[in-house]
């Protein structure tokens, strides 16, 4: 028969062993995981700028080859820091935690945001990291703008736990290639963002079609999340974009 004392001792020891085991594993594996996350981030930035053949093995070297400048901007659109020399993954911009900065913004506090400049074929591309909320968890991505700060060169999206086959389809080429060539400002220089709409751009008035893409059937909430994410993030960068256009 098991006494109460035995049960308590058993539970206590079991919990301690499990905790020790898990924290050791987490500590030992953390460097590998962080490296993977950094590489993934670089891969996303490069892919959005249409750099070909990016994969996990060459992302870091390509990132250092193509990214010429990392800019940190504040809420007024002023450049706080520009990092051009040295290893690009050590730049301040690369280390900024978007989640924290966006929280500061929602609280009305000053915030800083990263911007990456890629030079390819003599042209400068500006890459804005995105972050927002999908159906089940965070979604994020990158948007590459050409040097007119208006036309989109490419985008990438990623997500934590959107439904496979539905919301998770935002990562596919079929969805992301719709963004190429779309514009975020209209002819009157008003900020229009990019609208993710059911039925595609044809459903919009003719003069707005250049700002619209088709949503994914069955992934409505995720697509609304993408729509809001692009709007919110571009809104945060708006002072900088307008100063430099």
């Amino acid at each position, binding site marked *: 028969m*098991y006494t109460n004392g035995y*049960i308590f001792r*058993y539970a206590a020891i079991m919990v301690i062993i499990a905790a020790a085991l898990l924290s050791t594993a987490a500590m030992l594996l953390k460097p590998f995981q962080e490296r993977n996350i950094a590489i993934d981030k670089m891969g996303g930035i490069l892919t959005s700028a249409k750099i070909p053949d990016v994969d996990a093995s060459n992302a870091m070297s390509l990132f250092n080859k193509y990214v010429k400048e990392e800019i940190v901007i504040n809420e007024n659109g002023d450049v706080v820091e520009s990092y051009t020399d040295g290893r690009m993954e050590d730049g301040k911009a690369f280390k900024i935690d978007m989640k924290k900065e966006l929280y500061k913004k929602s609280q009305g506090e000053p915030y800083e945001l990263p911007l990456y400049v890629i030079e390819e074929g003599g042209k400068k591309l500006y890459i804005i990291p995105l972050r927002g909320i999908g159906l089940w968890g965070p979604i994020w991505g990158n948007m590459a703008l050409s040097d007119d700060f208006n036309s989109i060169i490419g985008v990438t999206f990623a997500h934590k736990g959107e439904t*496979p086959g539905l919301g998770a389809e935002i990562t596919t080429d079929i969805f992301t290639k719709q963004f190429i060539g779309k514009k975020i400002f209209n002819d009157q220089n008003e900020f229009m963002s990019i609208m993710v709409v059911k039925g595609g751009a044809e459903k919009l008035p003719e003069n707005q079609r250049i700002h619209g893409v088709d949503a994914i059937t069955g992934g409505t909430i995720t697509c609304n999340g993408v729509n809001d994410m692009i709007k919110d993030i571009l809104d945060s960068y708006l002072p900088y974009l307008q100063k430099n256009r």
Partner: protein
Amino acid sequence: MSAEVKEKEPLFSPKNLKLIKTPINLSNPITVQVLGICSALAVTAKLMPAIVLSISVVVVMAASNVVVSLLRNGIPPRIRIIVQLVVIASMVILVDQVLKAFVYDVSKQLSVFVGLIITNCIIMGRLEAFAMSNKPWPAFLDGIGNALGYGIILIIVAFFRELLGSGTLLDIQVIPDGFYEFGYKNNGLMILPPMALITVGVIIWVQRFYTRDLIEKN
């Protein structure tokens, strides 16, 4: 330890092999015991997550069956469910961490589903029904068997759902463009959960047709 077992009965004696074979067909966790349906619906829209989840379940199930079986004589019956949960949860977290460290792309695809292995009723069911009262080696085989039985159904369902729902297999297009030109369309319903249930139903039907033992004798 294995030498000791060998004296009594060989490692892969017919009795032990039965532990692997029965759950694949005669007492399949999904189609016969109707356990683990929730994850069978959730992850089978694409083939790749289904395969990786099956492998992860095999690892978690075999490992936690062995651990619980080793501990079985010391576990106080009154808190046995809690002990089983701690074992399963620890294993799942370990698998998740390892996936994140070494196969990041796959772990990104699986996202929350690895964590959901914890809630897979098959695992707890086998710990409670088998590992608590059997030696580690049979418990290991039982774990592998049941996880395979689960995984096979998952992969079959995912195969049909991805093929008919997206026209791809492992994200490679298999239905030629010509079909689409003739008006063939991917069936969007296949990627929604209800069709997973219907697919599982069809599998049960086919299985019962070929395995007469499963048919109830009024």
